Structure formats: C-alpha cells, structure tokens
C-alpha cells in the first residue's frame, strides 16, 4: 500500500505521429481542473519521426518529486498501439494496468504476428480497446486518442473508490482545448470519450469479442 495513494503515474506510449502528446495534453488539462499537481514529459526531435514514443504523465494531490516515473512504479500504461504497450511493462507496479488500442501500426518490416501480441496482452489482463472503430462509430474518426483517454478514465479509481480524475473534468478539458476548433469537434470528442469508457467497462474480452474481423 502506497504512502500517498492520491496520485497516479501513467506511461503514455505509441508511435511518433499517433498523437501520444495529445493524450498527455488532455489528461494534463483535466488534472489541472481537478486541482492536481502535474508533471508531463514530452518527446521532441528525432523520435517523433515514426519511432517508438514514450512519455511520462504524473498527477498527484501532493508535490511530485520529478518528471520521470520509476520502473516498477507506474499505475498504468496507456498505449496507442498494441506492440508498443508491451515495450514498457517493466514500468508497471505489480497491480498496474495496461490500456491499449487494438489497432496495430505497422511501419516496420519485422512486425510480429498480431495474435501473439493480443495473447500476451490478454495474459497481462490488458484492456484492449478497438479505438479506431469506436471513434468512427462515435462520429469522431479523428478522436482515437479521445477514445483511449475515455477507456483509461475507468481505471482512475483510488483504493478509496474515489476517481482521481472524473469524467466531468475530462469533458471540461475537452471543452477548453477544442472549443476553438468548433462545437462539432467538441461534441464528437464527447462521444469518443464516452465510447472509450463504455468499452473499457465492458472488459477486455468483451471488447475483443465485439470484433468481427
């Protein structure tokens, strides 16, 4: 049991260009709305060019010691890509969770068999979310990141049962960040957040079972 449970350390990952930083941006804004301290690392330069991207996101009711999450200390891996979700498992606490998008991003020749990846994720009790499809169904084809944030939001509960980051704060962050792009974008994102949350609540198996391919 942690001495300071009112905190959450999240490893954000994916492939450069997938919008990993936008995950960080919305989580960060929502955490600020909740009045939490935030430390959020970003990746710039060479790694943005289609390479594996790793960012650290930390939120806490108390002061946060640094920008990096220790290995064995992360509460969650939130990944935009299934293979990338497996790259950082040693960052997780024993009770840490993986939430990842199901759709693979194949920009390398030696990409492994998808079945093996999904099996490994299932063995790790990962929440595997068909985010691209859910985003499309929600009328937000560009809101894959929002689906993933929605899915992650079902895992923000503290041992006390309280959610560190409420759905309301995420919706408020969406409003603040995307209002300049128009009401249609805000509404689409709202739907995407909800779709992600529902899928994750249904459990990994359920969301996998819904796949018809």
């Amino acid at each position, binding site marked *: 049991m942690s001495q300071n449970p009112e905190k959450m350390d999240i490893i954000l990952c994916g492939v450069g260009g997938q919008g990993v930083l936008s995950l960080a941006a919305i989580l960060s804004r929502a955490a*600020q709305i909740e009045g939490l301290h935030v430390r959020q690392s*970003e990746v710039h330069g060479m790694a943005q*060019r289609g390479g594996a991207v790793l960012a650290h996101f930390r939120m806490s009711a108390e002061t946060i*010691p*640094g920008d*990096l999450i220790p*290995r*064995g200390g992360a509460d969650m891996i939130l990944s935009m890509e299934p293979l990338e979700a497996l790259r950082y498992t040693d960052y997780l606490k*024993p009770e840490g969770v993986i939430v990842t998008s199901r759709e693979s991003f194949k920009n*390398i020749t030696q990409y492994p068999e998808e079945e093996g990846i999904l099996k490994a994720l299932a063995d790790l009790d990962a929440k595997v979310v068909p985010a691209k499809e859910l985003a499309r169904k929600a009328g937000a084809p560009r809101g894959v990141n929002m689906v993933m944030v929605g899915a992650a939001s079902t895992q923000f509960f503290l041992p006390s049962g309280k959610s560190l980051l409420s759905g309301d704060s995420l919706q408020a962050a969406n409003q603040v960040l995307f209002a300049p792009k128009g009401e249609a974008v805000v509404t689409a994102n709202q739907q995407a957040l909800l779709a992600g949350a529902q899928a994750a609540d249904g459990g990994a198996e359920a969301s996998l079972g819904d796949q018809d391919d």
Partner: protein
Amino acid sequence: MNEMMLLGDEAVAQGAIDGGITSAYGYPGTPSTEIMEYLIQQREVQGKPLAHWCSNEKTAYEEALGASLSGRRVLITMKHVGLNVAADAFMNSALLDIKGGLVLAIADDPGMHSSQNEQDSRHYADMARIPCLEPENQQEAYELTRLAFDLSEKLHVPVMVRLLTRLSHARASVKTREKRSENPMKKADDRTGWMLLPALARRRWDSLIERQPVMVQALNEAAVNRLSSAKGAFGVIAAGIAGNYYEENRPDVENQRGKVPFLHVRAYPVDQEALERFLAPLTEVVVLEDGQPHIEKMLKGWLSRRLQEKTGITIKGRMDGTLPASGELNPDNVRLALGLSARAGREAYHGELPPRPPQLCRGCPHEDTYQVIKEAAAAFGQSVITSDIGCYALGALPPLAVPESIVCMGASVGMAKGAAEAGLKPAVGVIGDSTFLHSGIPALVDAVSCGTPMTLVILDNATVAMTGGQPTMVPSSRLAKIVEGIGVEPDHLHVLEAHRREHETNKTILLQEMKYEGVSVIITVRECLETLRKRKKMGGAS
C-alpha cells in the same frame, strides 16, 4: 503573479522575458528549440522581445554580444553541441566587461535522444571560468534564468543556464513574477573591456581569475545551493535534476538509514569550503549528476587525497561504476546507487519485440534523392557518401542505408573533399539546405579553391525539418546563387526536383557529375511534407 503550464524550455524563455531581455538569438537544436519558439511566438503577439533564429550558433552568439555591448539584456539559446560551434565567441566573451546581462541557455542531451554525443556543458562553463546555474525543475528554470541576468550584470560575465532533455521537455506549473523593465540602450563606456588585444586580454583574464571568489560569494548570497543537514556518515550530493531522482527514492533511503545529509548543487563554481565542510563528517558520499562526472571528478581530484587520507571517505558516482559511466540518470539507476534494491514491478515482456527506430516520413523528398545516390554509387566499384546532421541522417537505416559518415554540422562537405583528395572517389557529400548555410559553405569554398573532384548534393526542403520546421535563413530561390557565387562552374551546378518521376534524369546527371574531375553541386528541391502540411493548415485556418 501568474501561473502557467510550461515546458522547462518555455520557463527559461518566460524567465528571460520577465527578466527584461531586449533580444534573443539562437540556432534550433533538440532539446533547446522550444526556448526560441516560445520567444518568437511572444514577439508575434506582443511585438517584443526581438527574437531571431540565426545561421548558426556562432553568429547567434556574436549577435547577442552586440546587444550586450549596447547595454541590453540578451538571451542565447542552443543545444550542447551547438556550443562547440559558438565556442570561439563563448570562450572569449568570458573576458569581456559585460554590462548588459548576457545569458546563454544550453540544453544538454545525455542519453543522446537526438544528438551525436553527450558532452556536459558544465565543463565549458568551468573552462571559461563563468558561473553556471542548473535548475532542478520548471519553476527553478524560470527563477534561475532571472537570477542569471542579475548575476551577469553584477559580476560582469556571461552566465550559463544548463538544461537537460528531461527538464527542457517536461511540463509543470510555473508561477511567474512581475516583469522587470528592459535596460536602456547604453554603449559600454570603456572600450578596453571589449577589445581582446593580447595586452588587454591578459588584464581581463587576470581580472576574471581574481573575480572567482566573488562569484562563489554571490552564488552563496543568492542561496542557490541547498544543504539539508543531518547526522550520519553517509551523504548524498545531487546536481540539478538529479535531485528529483533522489527525492523519488528518499523515503526508502530514510527508511533504511534515517535522515541523510544532502547537498543539492544548482550553481557553479561550487564553494570548495562548503563542500569540505559537508564532506568532513562523512565516510561515504554518492554523487548524482546527469551528464558527465563533474563534481565527482573535482572531489576525486582535489579532495580525495587530503580527505580520503584523513577520514577514509569513499566517493561514489559515475567514475567507480556506482552509476553507469554513460547515459542519463533516472530514478532507477539512482535508486541502485543509493544502495536500495530495485522496485518490485511487473516483469519486462520477453516475447518478440522488434525495435521501432525513427524513420523518414512516407513520401519524403530525401528518400527520392537517396534512391538516386544509391543507384548512382552502385555504378562505381568504389565510392564514398558522407552525410550530415538533420532528418536525412535517417537515410542511414535500411533499406536506404546510403550515408557512410555522420559527424557534425557541415562535416559532409569537408569530409568529401578530404576523402577525394586522399584518393577515395567519387566522393559525394550530402547536406541539407539549413546545415549547408549553418557551416557547409566554408568547406565548399575550400573545395572550389582546390578544384577538388567531388560532388555536393544539397537537399533543399526549404525548412529546418528535424527540429520542427523552422524557416531556413535563405529562401530556395537564392541558394543556387550562393553556390555559384562561391565559384562552382554553372555547367556543374544543377537544380533538380527531388521526385520519383525525375529519378532517371536525376540519376543520369549525378552519374555524369560523379565522373567530373572538379567541384560539382546538385541541389535537389522539394518542400518538406510536414512543413507543407503545416503551411496548408495555417492557410486554411486564416
């Protein structure tokens, strides 16, 4: 008072604005780029401060010296290896009689996330004998940048603010304070402080050495370094952001050992007497510093013999393997260095996990040019392709795998010349438009003066792509004129389109020029896809 979520880089920029700068100069380079980007954005909104990208770090530094000579406060930004380019100006500027605050923000990149080496800029500050401040977090990046300007004017020297990738590129909340007004324009009244003729320079150098204790005193008065006293024979010294990693592990350290004496260094030159006092009761000290061993080396150099004999103190750090000799610090290797066992977490995944290195964007013009070079080179039994720093370095990876050398900004030109003159030819240098303007031009002047048989391919994508699409200093339309002006024969200067459909034409021309026994230059032109996308997006929004 205002509160903002800022990157470490942006906190430096805001600190400089609130510290009253009139101007700022720099050259883009990860992880320093966002300092100037922030300032340029501010300039676009507020009209000030004056903020400009420059051709290279040396010109940036010299332009800043001009601003300081005018009595104004000025910020210079670059990455660690950029300081090598600016080193001539930098080292000499330490001897000047600075009146208008001159602060250089240098971002180091240990772990080489986006760099060619992991040199530690604190060594440079030490060699120049100027103060260096090393913030621990975003708030300190703001505060210490402001302090750096005050110190620069108080001590009449340039002051370095040393940043690290992890601070430069992480956001946290920063509280800002009231803005100080700019300095009025006031030319330095004594020109002897600005002319480094040997007789004057000797005087300035002596003065700089004499002022070292004054610097230490000023840093002590500013209380930048912090000491947490405690009883006990095991102590910890951390520099800048390494303090974060200590803090991450401190509860576990204290569970084992009780409260530990801790010295957090954020300013150099360090106070040797204070260090001696800190170390005197200890038998073991772990030195945590990101980058190269700087404090540790100093301790082992001038303290160990005396103190180690007297007290038997053991100094642990990067030099004895307590911490890895290369790469970044992080909460994990610091944890082990503090004598703790690794945190029990989930196991690493042991299945198939191929690396996913960065790569050229699909449809990138560089790819088309590399295909041409690859096929042309294959027509010769032997050839050499020297390349340079930028996105096109990614062409080194398969399936392209064209470059055979990548060393430093501009090196492709001189290396192709030297190789050709040593008999390794045909020699083809490959350089981006921005890198060519940065430091490729002088070596092309050399090649023309010698009539060296070599071909230079300039990849003109009309942007500084790798660092996020800053504008190049000279538009594409004028690039060929510069090359021609250097003296490259017009018959051997070609401007081609970097596109798949031009492949055969381009290859024929390159083959022909690779056989030519003199200097030839081929400029392959097509705008960077990212820059094009951004431009269209902005055009569409307005």
